């Protein structure tokens, strides 16, 4: 098999584009290439484009291990397969390269009365217990049996069906927002509420305390928040 691997320099390191084939073939060829050019490539930061191949978390685990043993750092894995992208994301790898020129770096930060928050980009499954000394943003679902306890607000970009406690240390101004707000139990500060049966389609809702009672309202972007 002739080498179909292409290697080119990019801003952040080297981009290695693998030829067609199964991951097993690509992997074989990649290792052979890196070995044969070890002196020349040593210590490089690598972005690898695997085309349509499907890499499981285990494949990727093996690859990152092999690469780091050989002194390389893998920083990005580019693929057309959503499975591979997900595996890459679970390893904290980039799955896109910044377009040359279009990339911009964020210079310092401007904080217009903002507060830092914890961003969690995954579904929290049953048995998962997330506790945080601040605000929490979940991009994914919070399933029944999972629990989120935050000192500040809790925002769920997904279905909230587990247990959530916002303002857990007593902040009565804390809120809970979700695209589908159906928690097993919802607490704000020391107030506790359960979700009544929903009528109709779920809509984004926001829950907060009004006179010590938990009240949920359909999200209305025009209305001023208290």
């Amino acid at each position, binding site marked *: 098999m002739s080498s179909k691997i292409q290697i080119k320099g990019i801003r952040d390191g080297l981009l290695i584009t693998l030829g067609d084939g199964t991951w097993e073939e690509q992997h074989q060829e990649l290792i052979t290439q890196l070995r044969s050019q070890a002196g020349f490539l040593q210590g490089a930061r690598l972005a690898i484009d695997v085309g349509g191949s499907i890499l499981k978390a285990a494949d990727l685990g093996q690859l990152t291990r092999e690469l780091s043993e050989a002194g390389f750092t893998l920083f990005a894995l580019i693929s057309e397969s959503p*499975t591979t992208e997900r595996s890459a994301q679970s390893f904290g790898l980039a799955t896109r390269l910044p377009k040359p020129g279009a990339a911009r770096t964020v210079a310092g930060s401007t904080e217009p009365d903002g507060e830092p928050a914890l961003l969690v980009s995954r579904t929290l499954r*049953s048995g998962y217990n997330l506790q945080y000394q601040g605000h929490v943003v979940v991009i994914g*679902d919070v399933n029944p049996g999972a629990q989120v306890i935050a000192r500040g607000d809790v925002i769920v970009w997904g279905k909230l069906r587990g247990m959530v406690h916002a303002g857990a240390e007593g902040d009565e101004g804390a809120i809970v927002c979700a695209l589908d707000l159906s928690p097993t139990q919802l607490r704000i500060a020391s107030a506790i509420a359960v979700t009544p049966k929903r009528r109709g389609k779920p809509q984004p809702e926001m829950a907060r305390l009004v006179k010590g009672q938990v009240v949920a309202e359909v999200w209305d972007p025009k209305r001023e928040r208290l």
Partner: protein
Amino acid sequence: MTGKAITVTSGKGGVGKTTVTANLGAALANFGHKVVCIDADIGLRNLDVVLGLENRIVYDLVDIVEGRCRLRQAMIRDKRLPELFLIPAAQTRDKSAISPSDMVTLADDLRAEFDYILFDSPAGIERGFRNAVAPADMVLVVTNPEVSAVRDADRIIGLVEAEEKGPARLVINRIKPEMVRRGDMLGVDDILELLAVQLVGLVPDDENVLLSTNRGLPVVLDGKSKAGLAFRNIARRVMGEEVPFMHFDETGGFLNRITRLIRPGGN
């Protein structure tokens, strides 16, 4: 050629792991693959009973791991399906007799000879789960269409992801179309919406399963039973074929029809 290791697990007990393992093994062997089923439910062995091989046990999994016998000596060949083998669990020991790395080594020793290496696991999330999942290339999570089983399945799917063995695939076992229709049982769509993993099997509740277990003959070898067909379909999906899912229709019967039940796995 290297064999594929598949672990069958669940959070809740009694949902049908052993039944799925035995029937998937028998179906794959019936399709001409060389298969070994390993009972990793140590202390509570019963895969041998379901496969009807109980009376031929001499050595077991713990004997292999502790070096009291060679791998070959502990493998029991199924006389009806010459491509199907069983490594039974120890009856008298507990899960701590075996470590996850023992299981990985065992699977690796078997990969050269077998196309599929199936592990049946104990219920729960403890050591026994980690033992059974450690060697897996693919994990099948079995659930029943009831709230508590699905809740536990969700937990297990999360743990499978945490062990980097995900995304898990789902088998929903013991579906009673009557009950789903009356709203007394969770529907397939509800379960998939919650669990967000890829479905590989829908198995109806079928008394033939019990009858065949009592006879020690996997139901999949019964050409006419609905559950048998469902298990054959699981085997074909595991082999990489696209097979439409059984559709449980209003009258409680079932038809083969394409439905949009496959969802992308993962988070």
